[in-house]
Protein backbone atom coordinates (compact mmCIF):
# COMPACT_ATOMS: atom_id res chain seq x y z
CA UNK A 1 0.00 0.00 0.00
CA UNK A 2 1.43 3.42 -0.97
CA UNK A 3 1.58 6.38 1.37
CA UNK A 4 1.28 10.18 1.27
CA UNK A 5 3.12 13.09 3.03
CA UNK A 6 1.79 16.69 3.09
CA UNK A 7 3.75 19.90 3.85
CA UNK A 8 1.45 22.82 4.66
CA UNK A 9 2.26 25.75 4.66
CA UNK A 10 5.55 26.76 2.96
CA UNK A 11 6.86 29.72 4.93
CA UNK A 12 8.58 32.73 3.44
CA UNK A 13 6.78 32.60 0.14
CA UNK A 14 3.98 34.91 -0.72
CA UNK A 15 0.59 33.23 -0.56
CA UNK A 16 -0.69 29.89 0.66
CA UNK A 17 0.75 26.53 -0.26
CA UNK A 18 0.33 22.90 0.65
CA UNK A 19 2.59 20.05 -0.34
CA UNK A 20 1.51 16.43 -0.55
CA UNK A 21 4.07 13.67 -0.80
CA UNK A 22 2.79 10.31 -1.99
CA UNK A 23 4.61 7.16 -1.02
CA UNK A 24 4.46 3.92 -2.99
CA UNK A 25 4.12 0.42 -1.55
CA UNK A 26 7.86 0.29 -0.91
CA UNK A 27 7.75 3.52 1.15
CA UNK A 28 9.54 5.53 -1.55
CA UNK A 29 8.26 8.92 -2.66
CA UNK A 30 6.40 8.35 -5.92
CA UNK A 31 4.86 11.77 -6.50
CA UNK A 32 4.79 15.28 -5.03
CA UNK A 33 2.14 17.95 -5.41
CA UNK A 34 2.60 21.61 -4.67
CA UNK A 35 -0.98 22.82 -4.18
CA UNK A 36 -2.15 26.40 -4.29
CA UNK A 37 -5.40 26.51 -2.42
CA UNK A 38 -6.40 30.13 -2.83
CA UNK A 39 -8.85 30.71 -5.66
CA UNK A 40 -7.86 33.12 -8.39
CA UNK A 41 -10.73 34.99 -10.01
CA UNK A 42 -9.00 38.19 -10.81
CA UNK A 43 -9.50 38.15 -14.57
CA UNK A 44 -13.28 38.10 -14.07
CA UNK A 45 -12.99 41.03 -11.71
CA UNK A 46 -11.29 43.08 -14.46
CA UNK A 47 -14.14 42.69 -16.94
CA UNK A 48 -16.04 45.91 -17.54
CA UNK A 49 -13.13 48.13 -16.46
CA UNK A 50 -11.46 50.54 -18.86
CA UNK A 51 -8.11 49.32 -20.18
CA UNK A 52 -6.71 52.70 -19.10
CA UNK A 53 -7.46 51.80 -15.47
CA UNK A 54 -5.79 48.40 -15.71
CA UNK A 55 -2.19 49.42 -14.83
CA UNK A 56 -3.45 50.95 -11.59
CA UNK A 57 -5.76 48.03 -10.80
CA UNK A 58 -3.35 45.22 -11.60
CA UNK A 59 -0.50 46.87 -9.68
CA UNK A 60 -2.58 46.20 -6.58
CA UNK A 61 -2.35 42.45 -7.01
CA UNK A 62 0.97 42.34 -5.23
CA UNK A 63 3.01 44.42 -2.80
CA UNK A 64 6.33 43.02 -4.00
CA UNK A 65 6.16 43.32 -7.78
CA UNK A 66 3.39 45.89 -8.46
CA UNK A 67 5.64 47.64 -10.99
CA UNK A 68 5.79 44.53 -13.19
CA UNK A 69 2.01 44.33 -13.38
CA UNK A 70 1.72 48.06 -13.99
CA UNK A 71 4.29 47.99 -16.81
CA UNK A 72 2.92 44.88 -18.45
CA UNK A 73 -0.61 46.20 -18.30
CA UNK A 74 0.46 49.56 -19.73
CA UNK A 75 2.25 47.73 -22.55
CA UNK A 76 -0.95 45.85 -23.34
CA UNK A 77 -2.59 49.28 -23.35
CA UNK A 78 0.07 50.60 -25.78
CA UNK A 79 -0.95 47.76 -28.10
CA UNK A 80 -4.62 48.70 -27.82
CA UNK A 81 -3.78 52.30 -28.65
CA UNK A 82 -1.49 51.03 -31.44
CA UNK A 83 1.13 53.65 -30.62
CA UNK A 84 4.88 53.67 -30.36
CA UNK A 85 5.63 55.42 -27.08
CA UNK A 86 8.32 58.15 -26.94
CA UNK A 87 11.89 57.01 -26.32
CA UNK A 88 12.01 59.15 -23.19
CA UNK A 89 9.07 57.20 -21.73
CA UNK A 90 10.69 53.87 -22.59
CA UNK A 91 13.87 54.94 -20.78
CA UNK A 92 11.94 55.93 -17.65
CA UNK A 93 9.87 52.75 -17.72
CA UNK A 94 13.08 50.74 -17.95
CA UNK A 95 14.59 52.68 -15.06
CA UNK A 96 11.52 51.93 -12.96
CA UNK A 97 11.66 48.27 -13.92
CA UNK A 98 15.33 47.89 -12.96
CA UNK A 99 14.59 49.48 -9.58
CA UNK A 100 11.79 46.97 -9.09
CA UNK A 101 13.99 43.99 -9.91
CA UNK A 102 16.68 45.19 -7.48
CA UNK A 103 14.24 45.57 -4.58
CA UNK A 104 12.47 42.27 -5.23
CA UNK A 105 15.66 40.22 -5.70
CA UNK A 106 17.22 41.83 -2.61
CA UNK A 107 14.23 40.79 -0.52
CA UNK A 108 14.42 37.25 -1.85
CA UNK A 109 18.14 36.80 -1.36
CA UNK A 110 18.92 38.68 1.83
CA UNK A 111 15.77 38.19 3.84
CA UNK A 112 14.06 35.03 2.67
CA UNK A 113 16.86 32.73 1.58
CA UNK A 114 20.14 33.83 3.16
CA UNK A 115 19.21 32.48 6.63
CA UNK A 116 19.17 29.01 5.01
CA UNK A 117 22.68 29.47 3.64
CA UNK A 118 24.29 31.34 6.49
CA UNK A 119 22.71 29.43 9.36
CA UNK A 120 22.27 26.03 7.71
CA UNK A 121 19.23 23.98 6.76
CA UNK A 122 19.42 21.92 9.91
CA UNK A 123 19.32 24.89 12.27
CA UNK A 124 16.30 25.15 14.58
CA UNK A 125 13.59 27.04 12.61
CA UNK A 126 13.12 29.32 15.63
CA UNK A 127 16.66 30.57 15.01
CA UNK A 128 16.89 30.05 11.23
CA UNK A 129 15.28 33.35 10.39
CA UNK A 130 16.39 36.88 9.80
CA UNK A 131 16.83 37.46 13.53
CA UNK A 132 19.34 34.64 13.54
CA UNK A 133 20.92 36.24 10.51
CA UNK A 134 21.09 39.62 12.24
CA UNK A 135 22.73 37.99 15.22
CA UNK A 136 25.20 36.09 13.01
CA UNK A 137 25.90 38.77 10.44
CA UNK A 138 24.24 42.16 11.04
CA UNK A 139 26.23 43.76 8.24
CA UNK A 140 24.73 41.42 5.61
CA UNK A 141 21.23 42.06 6.96
CA UNK A 142 21.68 45.83 7.01
CA UNK A 143 23.25 45.92 3.54
CA UNK A 144 20.41 43.80 2.20
CA UNK A 145 17.90 46.28 3.54
CA UNK A 146 19.82 49.21 2.05
CA UNK A 147 19.95 47.52 -1.34
CA UNK A 148 16.21 46.99 -1.26
CA UNK A 149 15.76 50.61 -0.16
CA UNK A 150 17.73 51.68 -3.21
CA UNK A 151 15.31 49.85 -5.50
CA UNK A 152 12.37 51.35 -3.64
CA UNK A 153 13.87 54.84 -3.92
CA UNK A 154 14.11 54.44 -7.70
CA UNK A 155 10.44 53.49 -7.79
CA UNK A 156 9.32 56.27 -5.46
CA UNK A 157 11.42 58.94 -7.16
CA UNK A 158 9.95 58.11 -10.55
CA UNK A 159 6.40 57.30 -9.67
CA UNK A 160 5.79 59.24 -6.49
CA UNK A 161 4.93 56.11 -4.52
CA UNK A 162 6.76 52.96 -3.44
CA UNK A 163 3.70 50.91 -4.29
CA UNK A 164 0.53 51.21 -6.32
CA UNK A 165 1.51 54.19 -8.37
CA UNK A 166 -0.44 55.14 -11.48
CA UNK A 167 2.55 56.82 -13.10
CA UNK A 168 2.87 54.30 -15.94
CA UNK A 169 -0.09 54.57 -18.31
CA UNK A 170 -0.95 53.34 -21.80
CA UNK A 171 1.02 55.62 -24.11
CA UNK A 172 3.93 56.37 -21.79
CA UNK A 173 4.36 57.79 -18.31
CA UNK A 174 2.55 60.59 -16.55
CA UNK A 175 5.49 62.84 -15.61
CA UNK A 176 9.08 63.28 -16.73
CA UNK A 177 11.97 62.78 -14.31
CA UNK A 178 13.35 65.89 -12.61
CA UNK A 179 17.05 66.67 -12.21
CA UNK A 180 16.59 66.43 -8.41
CA UNK A 181 15.12 62.97 -8.87
CA UNK A 182 17.98 61.90 -11.11
CA UNK A 183 20.50 63.12 -8.52
CA UNK A 184 18.68 61.37 -5.70
CA UNK A 185 18.88 58.02 -7.49
CA UNK A 186 22.48 58.62 -8.55
CA UNK A 187 23.52 59.22 -4.92
CA UNK A 188 22.68 55.59 -4.12
CA UNK A 189 24.63 54.01 -6.97
CA UNK A 190 28.14 53.65 -5.46
CA UNK A 191 26.77 51.94 -2.35
CA UNK A 192 24.44 49.68 -4.34
CA UNK A 193 27.23 48.59 -6.67
CA UNK A 194 29.63 47.92 -3.82
CA UNK A 195 27.02 45.92 -1.90
CA UNK A 196 26.13 43.66 -4.80
CA UNK A 197 29.75 43.08 -5.80
CA UNK A 198 30.67 42.18 -2.22
CA UNK A 199 27.66 39.87 -2.05
CA UNK A 200 28.64 38.13 -5.28
CA UNK A 201 32.16 37.57 -3.94
CA UNK A 202 30.70 36.18 -0.73
CA UNK A 203 28.24 33.95 -2.60
CA UNK A 204 30.84 32.39 -4.89
CA UNK A 205 32.79 31.31 -1.79
CA UNK A 206 29.65 30.19 -0.01
CA UNK A 207 28.40 27.98 -2.86
CA UNK A 208 31.05 25.37 -2.14
CA UNK A 209 29.30 24.58 1.14
CA UNK A 210 26.04 23.87 -0.68
CA UNK A 211 27.04 21.27 -3.24
CA UNK A 212 24.49 18.85 -1.86
CA UNK A 213 21.60 21.30 -2.23
CA UNK A 214 22.77 22.30 -5.71
CA UNK A 215 22.70 18.61 -6.69
CA UNK A 216 19.12 17.92 -5.61
CA UNK A 217 17.29 21.29 -5.52
CA UNK A 218 15.51 21.19 -8.85
CA UNK A 219 18.50 19.84 -10.74
CA UNK A 220 16.88 18.24 -13.80
CA UNK A 221 16.58 18.89 -17.52
CA UNK A 222 13.88 21.29 -18.65
CA UNK A 223 13.33 24.04 -21.13
CA UNK A 224 13.99 27.65 -20.17
CA UNK A 225 12.16 30.69 -21.48
CA UNK A 226 12.93 34.40 -21.42
CA UNK A 227 12.91 37.56 -23.48
CA UNK A 228 15.99 38.50 -25.48
CA UNK A 229 17.17 41.48 -27.51
CA UNK A 230 17.43 41.16 -31.31
CA UNK A 231 21.04 39.95 -30.89
CA UNK A 232 20.10 37.49 -28.14
CA UNK A 233 21.10 39.61 -25.14
CA UNK A 234 19.47 39.75 -21.70
CA UNK A 235 16.26 41.75 -21.80
CA UNK A 236 13.75 42.60 -19.07
CA UNK A 237 11.43 45.26 -20.44
CA UNK A 238 10.95 44.44 -24.11
CA UNK A 239 12.33 41.89 -26.53
CA UNK A 240 11.14 38.64 -28.05
CA UNK A 241 10.65 35.14 -26.73
CA UNK A 242 13.44 32.57 -26.75
CA UNK A 243 13.34 28.97 -25.50
CA UNK A 244 16.48 26.91 -24.91
CA UNK A 245 16.68 23.26 -23.92
CA UNK A 246 18.74 21.66 -21.17
CA UNK A 247 21.80 21.54 -23.40
CA UNK A 248 21.54 25.25 -24.04
CA UNK A 249 20.41 24.80 -27.64
CA UNK A 250 17.88 27.34 -28.90
CA UNK A 251 14.58 25.62 -29.70
CA UNK A 252 12.51 28.75 -30.47
CA UNK A 253 13.72 32.27 -31.00
CA UNK A 254 12.64 35.84 -31.68
CA UNK A 255 8.97 35.00 -31.33
CA UNK A 256 6.98 38.24 -30.93
CA UNK A 257 5.32 38.29 -27.51
CA UNK A 258 1.76 38.83 -28.86
CA UNK A 259 2.13 35.38 -30.43
CA UNK A 260 2.96 33.66 -27.13
CA UNK A 261 -0.13 31.46 -27.38
CA UNK A 262 1.44 29.70 -30.40
CA UNK A 263 4.02 28.13 -28.08
CA UNK A 264 2.51 28.30 -24.59
CA UNK A 265 -0.49 26.19 -23.57
CA UNK A 266 -2.13 26.13 -20.12
CA UNK A 267 -3.17 22.90 -18.42
CA UNK A 268 -5.21 22.57 -15.23
CA UNK A 269 -5.19 19.93 -12.50
CA UNK A 270 -8.05 19.21 -10.10
CA UNK A 271 -5.84 19.50 -6.98
CA UNK A 272 -4.63 23.09 -7.38
CA UNK A 273 -5.93 26.47 -8.52
CA UNK A 274 -2.57 27.32 -10.10
CA UNK A 275 -2.49 26.56 -13.83
CA UNK A 276 0.33 24.66 -15.54
CA UNK A 277 1.69 26.51 -18.58
CA UNK A 278 3.76 24.32 -20.93
CA UNK A 279 5.64 24.55 -24.21
CA UNK A 280 3.05 23.43 -26.76
CA UNK A 281 5.30 21.65 -29.27
CA UNK A 282 6.34 19.17 -26.54
CA UNK A 283 2.85 18.80 -25.03
CA UNK A 284 1.80 18.50 -21.39
CA UNK A 285 3.60 17.79 -19.10
CA UNK A 286 6.66 17.13 -21.32
CA UNK A 287 6.79 20.79 -22.26
CA UNK A 288 7.87 21.85 -18.76
CA UNK A 289 9.84 25.08 -18.85
CA UNK A 290 11.28 27.46 -16.30
CA UNK A 291 11.25 31.25 -16.21
CA UNK A 292 12.91 33.82 -13.97
CA UNK A 293 16.52 34.79 -13.27
CA UNK A 294 18.01 31.34 -13.93
CA UNK A 295 16.07 30.98 -17.19
CA UNK A 296 16.96 34.48 -18.32
CA UNK A 297 20.67 33.86 -17.85
CA UNK A 298 20.32 30.52 -19.63
CA UNK A 299 18.58 31.95 -22.67
CA UNK A 300 20.67 35.11 -23.02
CA UNK A 301 23.79 35.05 -25.17
CA UNK A 302 25.19 37.96 -23.16
CA UNK A 303 24.10 40.58 -20.62
CA UNK A 304 25.39 43.66 -22.40
CA UNK A 305 26.95 45.41 -19.40
CA UNK A 306 30.63 44.90 -18.51
CA UNK A 307 30.43 43.69 -14.89
CA UNK A 308 27.40 41.46 -15.42
CA UNK A 309 28.97 39.95 -18.54
CA UNK A 310 32.03 38.98 -16.52
CA UNK A 311 29.81 37.37 -13.91
CA UNK A 312 27.77 35.58 -16.58
CA UNK A 313 30.93 34.01 -17.99
CA UNK A 314 31.72 32.56 -14.53
CA UNK A 315 28.11 31.49 -14.01
CA UNK A 316 28.19 29.52 -17.26
CA UNK A 317 30.96 27.33 -15.81
CA UNK A 318 28.31 25.71 -13.58
CA UNK A 319 26.78 23.76 -16.45
CA UNK A 320 27.73 22.13 -19.72
CA UNK A 321 24.75 23.62 -21.46
CA UNK A 322 22.10 25.41 -19.51
CA UNK A 323 22.65 25.69 -15.73
CA UNK A 324 19.99 23.27 -14.50
CA UNK A 325 19.85 23.42 -10.71
CA UNK A 326 17.10 25.64 -9.30
CA UNK A 327 19.48 26.30 -6.43
CA UNK A 328 21.35 28.62 -8.79
CA UNK A 329 18.34 30.93 -9.04
CA UNK A 330 19.99 32.67 -6.07
CA UNK A 331 23.26 33.23 -7.93
CA UNK A 332 21.37 34.37 -11.04
CA UNK A 333 19.41 36.84 -8.91
CA UNK A 334 22.62 38.45 -7.69
CA UNK A 335 23.99 38.78 -11.24
CA UNK A 336 20.72 40.37 -12.31
CA UNK A 337 20.93 42.89 -9.47
CA UNK A 338 24.40 43.87 -10.67
CA UNK A 339 23.11 44.10 -14.24
CA UNK A 340 20.22 46.33 -13.16
CA UNK A 341 22.52 48.63 -11.18
CA UNK A 342 24.73 48.98 -14.25
CA UNK A 343 21.73 49.68 -16.47
CA UNK A 344 20.39 52.28 -14.02
CA UNK A 345 23.77 54.01 -14.09
CA UNK A 346 23.75 53.94 -17.88
CA UNK A 347 20.24 55.39 -18.14
CA UNK A 348 20.96 58.15 -15.62
CA UNK A 349 23.85 59.28 -17.83
CA UNK A 350 21.66 59.56 -20.93
CA UNK A 351 21.79 63.16 -22.28
CA UNK A 352 18.06 63.24 -22.98
CA UNK A 353 16.95 61.64 -19.71
CA UNK A 354 14.92 64.65 -18.53
CA UNK A 355 12.99 65.14 -21.76
CA UNK A 356 9.40 66.29 -21.20
CA UNK A 357 8.19 64.14 -24.11
CA UNK A 358 7.04 61.07 -22.26
CA UNK A 359 3.56 60.41 -23.56
CA UNK A 360 1.92 59.43 -26.85
CA UNK A 361 -1.75 60.38 -27.02
CA UNK A 362 -4.24 58.24 -28.90
CA UNK A 363 -7.64 56.61 -28.71
CA UNK A 364 -8.16 52.90 -28.75
CA UNK A 365 -7.27 51.60 -32.20
CA UNK A 366 -7.35 47.84 -31.59
CA UNK A 367 -9.64 45.41 -29.82
CA UNK A 368 -6.93 43.08 -28.54
CA UNK A 369 -3.53 43.69 -26.95
CA UNK A 370 -0.78 41.69 -25.27
CA UNK A 371 1.74 43.22 -22.89
CA UNK A 372 4.82 41.36 -21.74
CA UNK A 373 7.90 41.99 -19.64
CA UNK A 374 10.29 40.06 -17.46
CA UNK A 375 9.04 40.43 -13.88
CA UNK A 376 11.54 39.58 -11.13
CA UNK A 377 10.18 36.01 -10.99
CA UNK A 378 9.89 35.55 -14.74
CA UNK A 379 8.00 36.39 -17.90
CA UNK A 380 4.66 38.08 -17.27
CA UNK A 381 1.90 38.37 -19.89
CA UNK A 382 -1.25 40.49 -19.76
CA UNK A 383 -3.63 39.69 -22.58
CA UNK A 384 -6.73 41.89 -22.94
CA UNK A 385 -9.70 42.05 -25.27
CA UNK A 386 -11.81 45.19 -25.20
CA UNK A 387 -15.18 46.33 -26.46
CA UNK A 388 -16.12 49.59 -28.13
CA UNK A 389 -15.30 52.28 -25.55
CA UNK A 390 -12.26 50.40 -24.30
CA UNK A 391 -13.92 48.32 -21.60
CA UNK A 392 -12.29 44.98 -20.90
CA UNK A 393 -14.39 42.08 -22.16
CA UNK A 394 -11.81 39.36 -21.47
CA UNK A 395 -8.46 39.24 -19.67
CA UNK A 396 -5.84 36.58 -19.12
CA UNK A 397 -2.77 37.05 -16.92
CA UNK A 398 0.02 34.50 -17.28
CA UNK A 399 2.16 34.83 -14.19
CA UNK A 400 5.76 33.76 -13.67
CA UNK A 401 4.97 31.61 -10.64
CA UNK A 402 2.42 29.68 -12.70
CA UNK A 403 4.96 29.08 -15.47
CA UNK A 404 7.33 27.59 -12.91
CA UNK A 405 4.56 25.40 -11.50
CA UNK A 406 5.59 22.17 -13.25
CA UNK A 407 9.24 22.72 -12.30
CA UNK A 408 8.38 23.52 -8.67
CA UNK A 409 6.45 20.26 -8.43
CA UNK A 410 9.38 18.41 -9.96
CA UNK A 411 11.74 20.14 -7.51
CA UNK A 412 9.68 19.07 -4.51
CA UNK A 413 9.63 15.52 -5.84
CA UNK A 414 13.41 15.47 -6.31
CA UNK A 415 14.13 16.85 -2.84
CA UNK A 416 11.59 14.56 -1.18
CA UNK A 417 13.05 11.49 -2.91
CA UNK A 418 16.45 12.46 -1.58
CA UNK A 419 15.51 13.38 1.99
CA UNK A 420 12.28 11.56 2.94
CA UNK A 421 12.95 8.22 4.57
CA UNK A 422 10.18 6.19 6.14
CA UNK A 423 6.72 7.43 7.09
CA UNK A 424 7.76 10.36 9.33
CA UNK A 425 8.61 13.91 8.33
CA UNK A 426 11.86 15.23 9.74
CA UNK A 427 12.59 18.93 10.26
CA UNK A 428 15.68 18.93 8.00
CA UNK A 429 13.62 17.50 5.11
CA UNK A 430 10.88 20.08 5.63
CA UNK A 431 13.46 22.88 5.64
CA UNK A 432 14.94 21.64 2.38
CA UNK A 433 11.61 21.21 0.63
CA UNK A 434 10.74 24.76 1.64
CA UNK A 435 14.12 26.06 0.56
CA UNK A 436 13.78 24.29 -2.79
CA UNK A 437 10.51 26.08 -3.45
CA UNK A 438 11.90 29.35 -2.15
CA UNK A 439 14.67 29.16 -4.77
CA UNK A 440 11.97 30.02 -7.32
CA UNK A 441 10.79 32.85 -5.01
CA UNK A 442 7.17 32.07 -5.88
CA UNK A 443 4.65 34.82 -5.40
CA UNK A 444 1.28 33.31 -4.74
CA UNK A 445 -0.16 36.78 -4.20
CA UNK A 446 0.44 37.28 -7.89
CA UNK A 447 -0.75 33.88 -8.91
CA UNK A 448 -3.85 33.86 -6.73
CA UNK A 449 -4.25 37.49 -5.61
CA UNK A 450 -4.43 36.41 -2.00
CA UNK A 451 -4.65 38.68 1.00
CA UNK A 452 -2.89 38.47 4.32
CA UNK A 453 -0.38 35.90 5.44
CA UNK A 454 -0.76 32.38 4.19
CA UNK A 455 0.77 29.32 5.77
CA UNK A 456 2.15 25.98 4.54
CA UNK A 457 1.22 22.42 5.40
CA UNK A 458 3.02 19.22 4.38
CA UNK A 459 1.19 15.89 4.45
CA UNK A 460 2.65 12.45 4.01
CA UNK A 461 0.07 10.07 2.61
CA UNK A 462 -0.14 6.44 1.65
CA UNK A 463 -1.29 5.57 -1.88
CA UNK A 464 -4.75 4.83 -0.50
CA UNK A 465 -4.93 8.39 0.86
CA UNK A 466 -4.31 7.52 4.51
CA UNK A 467 -2.55 10.37 6.33
CA UNK A 468 0.72 9.17 7.83
CA UNK A 469 2.23 12.40 9.09
CA UNK A 470 1.72 16.15 8.73
CA UNK A 471 3.71 19.20 9.69
CA UNK A 472 2.87 22.86 9.35
CA UNK A 473 4.52 26.19 9.68
CA UNK A 474 3.45 29.79 9.83
CA UNK A 475 0.21 31.43 10.95
CA UNK A 476 -2.82 29.14 10.97
Amino acid at each position, binding site marked *: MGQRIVIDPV*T*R*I*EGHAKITLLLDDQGEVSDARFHVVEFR*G*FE*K*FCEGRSFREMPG*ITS*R*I*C*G*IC*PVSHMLTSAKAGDELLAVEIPEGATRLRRLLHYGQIVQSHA*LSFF*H*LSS*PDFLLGHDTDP*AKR*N*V*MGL*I*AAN*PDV*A*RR*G*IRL*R*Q*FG*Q*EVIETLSGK*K*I*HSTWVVPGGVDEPLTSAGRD*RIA*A*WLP*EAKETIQRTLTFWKREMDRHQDEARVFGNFPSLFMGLVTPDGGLEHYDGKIRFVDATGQIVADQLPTPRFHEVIGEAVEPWTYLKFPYYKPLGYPGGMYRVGPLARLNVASHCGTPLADRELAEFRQLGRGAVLSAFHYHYARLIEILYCVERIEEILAHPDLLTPHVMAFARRNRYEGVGCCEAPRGTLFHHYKVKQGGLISWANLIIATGQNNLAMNQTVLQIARHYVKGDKLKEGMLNRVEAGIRAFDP*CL*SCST*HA*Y*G*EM*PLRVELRAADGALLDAVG*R*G*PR
Partner: protein
Amino acid sequence: MAEIDCPDAVLVIAWGNPLREDDAVAWHVLEGLRSLKPRPGLPALHLRHAHQLTPEMAECVSRAAGVIFVDARRHGTPGEVRCQAIAPEAGANPLAHSLSPQALLLYAEQLYGRAPRAVLLSIAGERFGLGEAVSPVVRRAIPRAVRSILRQAKAWAGAAAETASRA
Protein backbone atom coordinates in the same frame (compact mmCIF):
# COMPACT_ATOMS: atom_id res chain seq x y z
CA MET B 1 25.60 57.34 1.74
CA ALA B 2 22.08 58.30 0.67
CA GLU B 3 19.81 59.36 3.54
CA ILE B 4 16.30 58.10 4.25
CA ASP B 5 13.63 60.69 5.00
CA CYS B 6 12.10 59.71 8.35
CA PRO B 7 10.39 62.53 10.29
CA ASP B 8 10.57 62.40 14.08
CA ALA B 9 6.78 62.17 14.57
CA VAL B 10 4.19 59.54 15.39
CA LEU B 11 4.26 57.20 12.42
CA VAL B 12 0.97 55.68 11.26
CA ILE B 13 1.43 52.68 8.98
CA ALA B 14 -1.73 51.36 7.34
CA TRP B 15 -1.57 48.22 5.26
CA GLY B 16 -3.74 45.73 3.41
CA ASN B 17 -4.73 44.68 -0.09
CA PRO B 18 -7.00 47.32 -1.66
CA LEU B 19 -8.46 44.73 -4.04
CA ARG B 20 -9.72 42.49 -1.24
CA GLU B 21 -12.72 44.38 0.12
CA ASP B 22 -12.39 44.90 3.90
CA ASP B 23 -8.70 44.05 3.82
CA ALA B 24 -8.29 47.63 2.54
CA VAL B 25 -9.96 49.31 5.53
CA ALA B 26 -6.66 50.60 6.91
CA TRP B 27 -6.09 52.57 3.70
CA HIS B 28 -9.48 54.24 4.21
CA VAL B 29 -8.58 55.08 7.80
CA LEU B 30 -5.45 56.77 6.50
CA GLU B 31 -7.57 58.75 4.04
CA GLY B 32 -9.72 59.81 7.00
CA LEU B 33 -6.64 61.12 8.78
CA ARG B 34 -5.42 62.90 5.64
CA SER B 35 -8.73 64.67 5.21
CA LEU B 36 -8.69 66.23 8.70
CA LYS B 37 -8.54 70.01 8.58
CA PRO B 38 -5.57 71.48 10.50
CA ARG B 39 -6.62 72.71 13.94
CA PRO B 40 -4.89 73.46 17.26
CA GLY B 41 -4.13 70.36 19.25
CA LEU B 42 -4.09 68.02 16.25
CA PRO B 43 -1.05 65.80 16.79
CA ALA B 44 1.70 65.66 14.15
CA LEU B 45 1.39 62.38 12.27
CA HIS B 46 3.56 60.89 9.54
CA LEU B 47 1.20 58.78 7.41
CA ARG B 48 2.28 55.83 5.34
CA HIS B 49 0.29 53.17 3.51
CA ALA B 50 1.55 49.82 2.32
CA HIS B 51 0.37 46.61 0.73
CA GLN B 52 2.37 44.74 3.34
CA LEU B 53 5.05 45.42 5.93
CA THR B 54 8.60 45.01 4.60
CA PRO B 55 12.10 45.18 6.10
CA GLU B 56 13.14 48.55 4.72
CA MET B 57 10.46 50.23 6.87
CA ALA B 58 12.51 49.36 9.95
CA GLU B 59 14.78 52.38 9.76
CA CYS B 60 11.91 54.88 9.82
CA VAL B 61 10.17 52.88 12.52
CA SER B 62 13.31 53.08 14.67
CA ARG B 63 13.33 56.88 14.40
CA ALA B 64 9.62 57.48 15.04
CA ALA B 65 8.27 58.99 18.26
CA GLY B 66 5.76 56.15 18.30
CA VAL B 67 4.15 53.85 15.75
CA ILE B 68 0.48 53.12 15.21
CA PHE B 69 0.00 50.11 12.94
CA VAL B 70 -3.43 49.94 11.30
CA ASP B 71 -4.75 46.73 9.75
CA ALA B 72 -7.88 44.71 9.07
CA ARG B 73 -8.33 41.50 11.02
CA ARG B 74 -10.26 38.40 10.09
CA HIS B 75 -11.76 37.57 13.46
CA GLY B 76 -14.20 39.40 15.71
CA THR B 77 -17.48 41.26 15.23
CA PRO B 78 -17.28 43.10 11.90
CA GLY B 79 -16.52 46.77 12.47
CA GLU B 80 -15.07 46.24 15.96
CA VAL B 81 -12.03 48.51 16.51
CA ARG B 82 -9.35 47.18 18.80
CA CYS B 83 -6.16 48.89 19.93
CA GLN B 84 -3.44 46.93 21.70
CA ALA B 85 0.12 47.68 22.70
CA ILE B 86 2.68 45.52 20.90
CA ALA B 87 6.36 44.82 21.46
CA PRO B 88 9.22 43.47 19.32
CA GLU B 89 8.81 39.76 18.61
CA ALA B 90 9.99 37.39 15.86
CA GLY B 91 6.60 35.69 15.48
CA ALA B 92 5.78 32.39 13.84
CA ASN B 93 6.41 33.43 10.26
CA PRO B 94 8.94 36.25 10.38
CA LEU B 95 10.36 35.83 6.89
CA ALA B 96 7.40 35.81 4.55
CA HIS B 97 7.48 38.53 1.89
CA SER B 98 5.59 40.50 4.49
CA LEU B 99 6.46 41.03 8.14
CA SER B 100 4.22 41.21 11.19
CA PRO B 101 4.27 44.58 13.02
CA GLN B 102 5.99 42.88 15.94
CA ALA B 103 8.72 41.55 13.64
CA LEU B 104 9.16 44.97 12.08
CA LEU B 105 9.70 46.41 15.58
CA LEU B 106 12.28 43.69 16.18
CA TYR B 107 14.07 44.62 12.94
CA ALA B 108 14.11 48.26 14.13
CA GLU B 109 15.51 47.27 17.50
CA GLN B 110 18.10 44.78 16.25
CA LEU B 111 19.33 46.66 13.19
CA TYR B 112 18.91 50.29 14.16
CA GLY B 113 19.10 50.13 17.95
CA ARG B 114 15.61 51.31 18.88
CA ALA B 115 12.05 50.02 18.89
CA PRO B 116 9.65 52.86 19.75
CA ARG B 117 6.41 52.38 21.65
CA ALA B 118 3.80 50.94 19.33
CA VAL B 119 0.17 49.90 19.14
CA LEU B 120 -1.73 47.77 16.66
CA LEU B 121 -5.13 49.21 15.79
CA SER B 122 -7.20 46.59 14.03
CA ILE B 123 -10.66 46.65 12.55
CA ALA B 124 -12.55 43.36 12.21
CA GLY B 125 -13.57 42.81 8.59
CA GLU B 126 -16.66 41.12 7.20
CA ARG B 127 -15.78 40.38 3.55
CA PHE B 128 -12.41 39.53 2.02
CA GLY B 129 -13.36 38.67 -1.55
CA LEU B 130 -12.20 40.40 -4.73
CA GLY B 131 -13.52 43.94 -4.76
CA GLU B 132 -12.62 47.53 -4.05
CA ALA B 133 -15.58 48.43 -1.82
CA VAL B 134 -15.43 48.15 1.95
CA SER B 135 -18.54 46.63 3.54
CA PRO B 136 -20.99 49.13 5.15
CA VAL B 137 -20.43 47.88 8.69
CA VAL B 138 -16.68 48.26 8.34
CA ARG B 139 -17.01 51.64 6.63
CA ARG B 140 -18.96 52.90 9.64
CA ALA B 141 -16.04 51.95 11.87
CA ILE B 142 -13.57 54.22 10.04
CA PRO B 143 -14.36 57.43 12.00
CA ARG B 144 -13.99 55.50 15.28
CA ALA B 145 -10.60 54.23 14.15
CA VAL B 146 -9.53 57.77 13.20
CA ARG B 147 -10.57 59.09 16.64
CA SER B 148 -8.76 56.24 18.34
CA ILE B 149 -5.53 57.05 16.48
CA LEU B 150 -5.77 60.73 17.40
CA ARG B 151 -6.40 59.84 21.06
CA GLN B 152 -3.37 57.56 21.09
CA ALA B 153 -1.09 60.11 19.44
CA LYS B 154 -2.26 62.84 21.86
CA ALA B 155 -1.67 60.56 24.83
CA TRP B 156 1.89 59.91 23.67
CA ALA B 157 2.48 63.61 23.04
CA GLY B 158 1.15 64.42 26.54
CA ALA B 159 3.36 61.81 28.15
CA ALA B 160 6.39 63.10 26.24
CA ALA B 161 5.66 66.71 27.31
CA GLU B 162 5.32 65.62 30.93
CA THR B 163 8.64 63.78 30.80
CA ALA B 164 10.30 66.80 29.20
CA SER B 165 8.95 69.20 31.86
CA ARG B 166 10.20 66.92 34.65
CA ALA B 167 13.63 66.87 33.06
